[in-house]
């Protein structure tokens, strides 16, 4: 083992900023990270033992204990549950003879829960040794476990056909479906890779590129909506001997999966966008930070990067522009939603735990390795290519006055056609529901923007998707009439934030949990009116958290109280003003039973 680990460490030049990659390789080699390896890594990278453990213990897909020869991670998100996860889970447990959270005694199978894996349009889905299995049914689970017991390797376990488009590429070979339902300017088939690099960049100064981007009024597609041109300009103006372009492909917000589709079908567009950004701000290196769940795209993406180098779309003097050097590498994550936050993303890419930084300074001033860094969402970078190709005026024709362009929506839940839709900004929620083949009468609520967004009811369906009204990173989860909003959605999302908090801020670490305890009290029919008011008050405390995760962690509860307060009121005790939530008889039951006494509490 020692030599294997040593080879991995040396592959990354004993560079402590590549600790993530080292751990990823060791985890994938052994199915866990053995104790001896931790010491060996610490010694070689000249860092403390606790520093290695700090990174290792932060990420969901690293483990200090064996996870089984076949490590099965079954998505536990809201939509997976809507689509029949419970039966799939039970079948896994029955067939494997173990519970979730356990590894079989022979070390063959490990069963684990995991947060949304970006497959909401084909749930229930699971990752097995990094490969994606979609549309699971109890029958399919039986096949899988039979294959495992027969010793079939994961790559050979696909009995059915591969997915559409590039999913069947020799280097992907996955059953994932794109489910592209509607194309627009970004997903447009009519695209010649490299066209902007060859035809436009050589005739433009970096300042002109920034100017075009500014004129297009494009704002970031990752959720925060910061004007892209301005961000680039800040970075261009900050002095630095080296600058970086990051593409944020962490896509961890439950219900979002559009970046997966871009990475599969339009990766060259993304890479071209990064090159343009590099040219504009004066960066020489680009890093695509891809969430662990999309590891199945690794060979495909790396092969494309090589192809781009061969065609001088990456490397030295790109596009014939003397002195313009730029290259791209891919950095995988290891399971942490918070790493989608731009400064946590950078920390993670530096080999550390994904703990967001204090801002200021912003990444454009002090980012990756303390150098000026631009972080942009996948879709933002793709859009820029089309803006430069067709001009800002062309782009401004799409969308609304304050929200230019198109947006890729990831739509899932109770609808006939879940998938990715590229639409112009400015449509109402009702239009969207109609587009996806859903009868409004069957809809109880829509979760706009994922758990960190808001849960809206019918009286808000006339609102429009744009930055000045319903701003969104693009996730829409449709919730049918048959669903129990508080138990199935609000509780699940709140648990999600609790699990994904980095834990650094006392507010995010504590208050979300305390709100959940209160929510459970209400769900248990022990709540009173004041408990609902407390939730609203406590939610305000979260707003002083360091990053967006903590600041929005109360949103599932807060927006459901705002828009569905009656659901809470139905559950509380009307005749009481106060309930401590403490049941004395229940609390002493066990001890009374043990000593054979009947509790007399009067």
């Amino acid at each position, binding site marked *: 083992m020692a030599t294997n680990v040593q080879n991995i460490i040396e592959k990354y030049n004993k560079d402590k900023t590549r600790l993530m990659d080292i751990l990823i390789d060791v985890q994938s080699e052994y199915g866990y990270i053995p104790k001896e390896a931790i010491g060996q890594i610490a010694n070689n990278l000249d860092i*403390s033992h606790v*520093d290695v453990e700090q990174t290792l*213990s932060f990420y969901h897909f690293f483990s200090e204990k064996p996870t089984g020869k076949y490590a099965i991670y079954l998505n536990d998100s809201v939509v997976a549950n809507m689509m029949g996860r419970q039966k799939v889970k039970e079948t896994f447990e029955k067939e494997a003879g173990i519970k979730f959270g356990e590894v079989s005694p022979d070390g063959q199978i490990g069963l684990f829960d995991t947060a949304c894996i970006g497959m909401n349009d084909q749930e229930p889905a699971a990752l097995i040794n990094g490969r994606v299995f979609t549309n699971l049914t109890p029958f399919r689970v039986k096949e899988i476990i039979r294959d495992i017991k027969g010793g079939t390797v994961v790559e050979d376990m696909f009995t059915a056909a591969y997915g559409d488009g590039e999913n069947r590429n020799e280097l992907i070979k996955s059953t994932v479906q794109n489910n592209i339902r509607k194309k627009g300017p970004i997903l447009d088939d009519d695209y010649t890779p490299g066209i902007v690099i060859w035809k436009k960049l050589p005739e433009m100064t970096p300042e002109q590129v920034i100017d075009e981007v500014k004129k297009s009024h494009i704002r970031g597609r990752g959720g925060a909506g910061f004007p892209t041109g301005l961000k680039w300009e800040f970075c261009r103006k900050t002095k630095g001997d080296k600058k970086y372009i990051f593409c944020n492909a962490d896509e961890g917000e439950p219900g979002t999966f559009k970046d997966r589709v871009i990475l599969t079908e339009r990766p060259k567009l993304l890479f071209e966008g990064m090159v343009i950004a590099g040219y504009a701000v004066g960066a020489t290196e680009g890093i695509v930070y891809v969430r662990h769940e999309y590891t199945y795209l690794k060979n495909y993406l790396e092969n494309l990067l090589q192809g781009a180098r061969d065609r001088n779309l990456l490397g030295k003097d790109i596009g014939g522009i003397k002195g313009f050097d730029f290259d791209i590498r891919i950095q995988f994550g290891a399971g942490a939603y918070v790493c989608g936050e731009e400064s946590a993303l950078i920390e993670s890419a530096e080999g550390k735990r994904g703990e967001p930084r204090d801002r200021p300074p912003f990444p454009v001033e002090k980012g990756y390795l303390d150098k000026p860094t631009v972080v942009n969402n996948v879709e933002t970078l793709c859009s820029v290519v089309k803006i430069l190709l067709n001009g800002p005026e062309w782009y401004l024709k799409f969308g609304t006055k304050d929200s230019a362009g198109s947006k890729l929506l990831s739509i899932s839940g109770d609808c006939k056609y879940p998938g990715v839709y590229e639409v112009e900004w400015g449509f109402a929620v009702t239009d969207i529901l109609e587009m996806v083949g859903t009868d409004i009468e069957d809809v109880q609520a829509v979760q706009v923007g994922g758990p960190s967004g808001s849960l809206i009811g019918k009286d808000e369906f006339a609102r429009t998707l744009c930055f000045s009204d319903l701003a969104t990173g693009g996730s829409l989860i449709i919730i049918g009439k048959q669903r129990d909003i508080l138990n199935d959605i609000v509780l699940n999302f709140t648990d999600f934030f*609790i699990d994904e*908090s980095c834990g650094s*801020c006392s507010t995010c*670490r504590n208050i979300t949990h305390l709100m959940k305890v209160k929510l459970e009290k209400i769900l248990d029919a022990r709540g009173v009116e004041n408990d609902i008011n*407390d939730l609203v008050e406590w939610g305000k*405390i979260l707003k*002083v958290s360091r990053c967006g995760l903590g600041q929005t962690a109360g949103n599932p509860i807060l927006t459901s109280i705002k828009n569905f307060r009656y659901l809470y009121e139905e559950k509380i005790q009307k005749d009481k003003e106060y309930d401590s939530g403490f049941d004395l008889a229940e609390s002493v039951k066990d001890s009374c039973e043990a000593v054979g006494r009947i509790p007399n509490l009067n």
Partner: protein
Amino acid sequence: MSTLIKFKIDGVECMAETGAYVVEAAVENGIFIPTLCNIKGVKPRGSCRVCTVLVNGRPMSACTTPVASGMEVENNIAELNDIRKAIIEALFVEGNHFCPSCEKSGNCELQALAYRFQMMVPRFPFDFPVRDIDASNPKIIKDHNRCILCKRCIRAIKTEDGKSVFAFKKRGRQLEINVDPDLGELFTDELAAKAAEICPVGAILLREKGYEIPIGQRKFDKEPIGSDIEKK
């Protein structure tokens, strides 16, 4: 060369050097902004959120935000003081803090802030977590029951060659402080004393020592925390 700039805290005109953090700048102007994870001379981290102020109307941690000319800071207002009190209460229910039996009582910044904000009983239910006391280190005792995860030890205590002795382990509510098993051996008496001193609560204690300063004569026994700053 240093340049002085003007800004306001709660409407009071203040002066500070450019680049100073709001918390420090406030101290220079005799204004107390409560802090807990912050410690003088060590890079701030903004994790307890107790020092949250409104900067031009937006919540920001005062320990990590540099002052800027013309900045309007709101600090001593009811809305913020209640959030601060709630944060402290939440820290009490998160761990197991039995002040009367704690060696740090009277020197503890968490306890002192609770007094200052007149905390009676937390608004939140107690968690009563089951946590360990780690006594494996020859010089210190690490009591996880009292740790508020302020990161001071991680940030301030390093070996001579700059390596971490303390680090975080896990995340979210599983987060804990991990003491390096190898480097712990290198702990000098000096380093151990420093660790115990910088810990705002009684989570790092020196072995075989205690109650050197009697109760009644400790840091916060006579006056509320922050009084020294306000007297300036």
